[in-house]
């Protein structure tokens, strides 16, 4: 198309190079401002170590020497860490960008909301992987964990839990006008899904309708999927479907609701 002597290019979304540059920019920002690393990298180890001392001594029969810590506490804690980082921590960074006007600046370029969200998720996920890897390494060294019975299924389950939590976090990030709003909305979402997912005393102690409802939300579904995968038991379709639905619905809503400015 030519207007006023100018060749107007067709709408071309920025390519892979732009996605890579944006991820690289986020990674650099995180590495240069290390305060943001405390939660995703420090918290998993802290939680697992404080919970592991007693629970790792209690070996469950018929589990190839796995302890209460490994079968019950660790999956719960890993889901909690991913939920906290994905739903509370990651959105606050994007909301800060919104308040600083950095998103407004990007809004005037051909960058698409999905690029900004993806860069945040990739950067945060990388931090989570480092934090969880470190925590598992420390747990193995201190408490002698046996490890997952089905490694591929456990990795797949963990990836699905992360995707679901980050999808929910992207919705929080998309709509929160300020960092405080992001933390508030993130915490409400986190405690909401965690409470009905069994974080406070286990799902078995919840009223049946609440527990059934919690199994359809990312926290309850995530704990169930990760526990079963870790010990090598078959995984029910229901929590997998719940997590997959959270990924699809959350991502679509986040892109649709994304706001560049306050």
């Amino acid at each position: 198309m030519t207007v006023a002597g100018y060749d107007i290019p067709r709408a071309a979304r920025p390519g892979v190079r732009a996605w890579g540059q944006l991820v690289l920019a986020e990674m650099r920002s995180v590495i240069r401002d290390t305060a943001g690393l405390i939660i995703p990298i420090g918290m998993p180890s802290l939680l697992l170590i404080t919970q592991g001392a007693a629970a790792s001594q209690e070996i469950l029969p018929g589990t190839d020497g796995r302890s209460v810590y490994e079968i019950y506490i660790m999956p719960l804690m890993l889901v909690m860490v991913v939920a906290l980082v994905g739903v509370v921590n990651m959105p606050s960074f994007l909301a800060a960008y919104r308040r600083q006007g950095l998103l407004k600046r990007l809004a005037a370029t051909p960058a698409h909301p999905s690029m900004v969200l993806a860069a945040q998720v990739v950067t945060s996920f990388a931090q989570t992987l480092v934090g969880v890897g470190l925590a598992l390494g420390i747990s193995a060294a201190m408490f002698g964990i046996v490890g997952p019975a089905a490694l591929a299924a456990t990795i797949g389950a963990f990836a699905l839990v992360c995707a679901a939590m980050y999808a929910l976090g992207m919705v929080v990030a998309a709509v929160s006008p300020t960092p405080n709003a992001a933390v508030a909305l993130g915490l409400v979402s986190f405690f909401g899904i965690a409470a009905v997912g069994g974080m406070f005393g286990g799902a078995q102690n919840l009223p049946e309708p609440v527990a059934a409802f919690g199994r359809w939300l990312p926290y309850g579904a995530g704990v169930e999927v990760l526990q079963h995968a870790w010990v090598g038991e078959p995984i029910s379709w229901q929590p997998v479907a719940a997590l997959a639905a959270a990924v699809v619905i959350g991502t679509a809503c986040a892109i649709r609701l994304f706001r560049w400015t306050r």
Partner: protein
Amino acid sequence: MRLRSVVRMMDIAVEVSGLSRGYRQKTVLDGVDLRVAVGETVGILGSNGAGKSTLVETIAGLRRPSQGSVRVLGLDPWRDRARVRGVLGVQLQEAELHSDLTVAENVRLHRSFYRDGERPEELIDRLGLAESARVRTQHLSGGQAQRLSVAVALVGRPRVVILDELTTGLDPEGRRDIWRLIEQMQERGATVLLVSHSMDEVERLCDRIVMLDEGRVAIEGTPAEIVNGTGADDLEDAFLRVRERASARRAS
């Protein structure tokens, strides 16, 4: 009127017709009409809250018109956002860059969003930022930060450039440097919309001026036409007279 405007007068780069925009019961823009020719530099003047930033942000496709229409090179910046943003270079108020990235990293990041554009290193050099290329944005002086803003706005080799209060807060030397940059853009044939509070700035740089008052176009024309038409001594005097007349009209 400058030659480059006469040559391309028939080509319209930006066309705003009956544009209105409100926020929470308050009308910020009220039936604004504006035509900017290709290669022309138009200054947008007005008091604080006159609607200048809302006007340019709507032209940039960041805000949706409540009424009326906006066209940039024939395209609707709200509906054809992806295409319009490919040909626009925008520097806005309250729009920051990654503070932990260096000058070069910020420019390279923004260059990656465009299919064609300037070579980041050359642009950095041209804007006098070569010595600061490895300095993080948060450590730049006000003048350097504004130059970087210009670099980021120009890196996609835009056809239409929007600059919102670019020299506010700069020392005289910094302002002169930025002015020279804008003159370079003009020499390259870019269409420029320049929002400013500085009369000497618009007088030096702009072919035409549009004065906004409470969301409406109060007067428009070349600097000389506005000064002569209002019977003022200079542009600042003309601005104040236009304001007074508009206030008197509203009061009556």
